[in-house]
């Protein structure tokens, strides 16, 4: 298990480096962001109703996480 994790680490680092490199090259200029400014295109702008839905799903499923990083949660599941 340890060997497997050690051998996959360089690959993960390489993938992260490639991703960051691609990200830096993807230069969308501010004047081209008209469509990206649409509320439907932004992440983390879902509001209260989405928080309530996530609260329900956390209580009705055996898993959690992967969404917005803000807030935290009280562990009231």
């Amino acid at each position, binding site marked *: 298990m340890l060997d497997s994790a050690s051998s996959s680490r360089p690959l993960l680092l390489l993938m992260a480096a490639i*991703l960051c490199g691609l*990200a*830096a090259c*993807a*230069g*969308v*200029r*501010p004047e*081209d*962001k*008209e*469509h*990206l400014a*649409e*509320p*439907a*295109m932004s*992440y983390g702008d879902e*509001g*209260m*109703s989405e*928080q*309530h*839905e996530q*609260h*329900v*799903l956390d*209580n*009705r*499923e*055996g*898993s*959690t*996480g*992967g*969404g*917005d*990083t*803000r*807030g*935290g*949660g*009280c*562990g*009231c599941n």
Partner: protein
Amino acid sequence: MQLTKLCLLTVVTLLMLLAAADGAFAQANMSAGTSLFREQGGPLHMDVIMPSVNAAVDVAEPLQLRVGWMADIVSGASVAVVDAPADSVDAITTATVSDTRHQLSGGLTLRDTQGSVDVTYNHAFENDYRSHNFAVTARTDLWDRNTGFEIGYSRAFDRVCDVAGTFEPVEKPRLDSSKGCFSDAQTRSARELAIHTLQAGFTQVWTPVFTTRIGVLAQLLHGFQVNPYRAVRIGKTAAQEHAPNDRARYALSASGRFWLVPLRAALGLEARAYRDSWGITSFSGELSYDQRLFGDVRLRLRLRYYAQGRAAFYSDDYMLAPKGRYFTGDRELSAMRSALFGLAFRWQLPTDESGHLLGFLSSFALVLKGDLLRSFFDEFHYDRAEVPNTLAQLLSLELRATM
């Protein structure tokens, strides 16, 4: 009475924040709304009303203050002893559930042109549960704001009411009510639960119409993690369910949004994988379509499918097929699937020539949202009876204002 006091406290705090905002000519955001959750079937039903109020005020150039309140007002009937003899749905024995959970939150955000730091504190309480949660989140934007990184850590200090005394797990009785919880009552005790959550996100704009986000979560829980009211029949008698004290949970999600220029609509796709040390693995996929209808009126359709495997110690019948030292009656720890269909309507009211509404609002939006959630429990039964309450509805109304 407690609810009234909390509402008053929240309203007074919000008014103070708004007054501060007015004095400093700063921007203030406020949202208020409520959600109604209903799940019913046979003798089981659960109704939850979730009102909430949130406000955020820019008190100075880099500093924003936030305050909020939300509640879960719960009433219903749930199963007290899982796998008690029941040939049909009507024979399932139920216990009445009635409680109100309040959550107060406060925090501040420091930000500049390249990033922000949020610090948040939540306190939640109900008759049988107490929670204090501290969260810190940092975010930065790079390369013309085309790339965003964020990382957050939260630590929760929770306490759960339980029966007092030392028992062998197979002899431990369930908690019969919340009466006496968090008091000097000799029959009650408080069990600790510590939760560490680390989350990170990477958002990337690739083209003028395409953006993606990757999110990861790692969470460690240590302490009491069962429903103290639920017992499981494990022989001639029933005992309070018994689960490991430690749980490590990991999730990875990837999502993309694509703007369809001719249709003036956004297409969204999200996938999430999850695994934890109790043996549960899950996957969810979501497809959304957000259409701008006319002006600032939007309609959003959403489909979500979820599937998970069972926990390593889950069994549908612990008398016939025990799974080691642990036993649970939690249907969410069995192999299950669910499908969600959601519809949301958002209306951003137009402003006048000066950019205002009613002379003092710079924006006002109304959000109306409805979800249908159908769950499928292929291997969970109440003795020989199928799970009756598998259809749930969630209806939300939210008002958002900026001044």
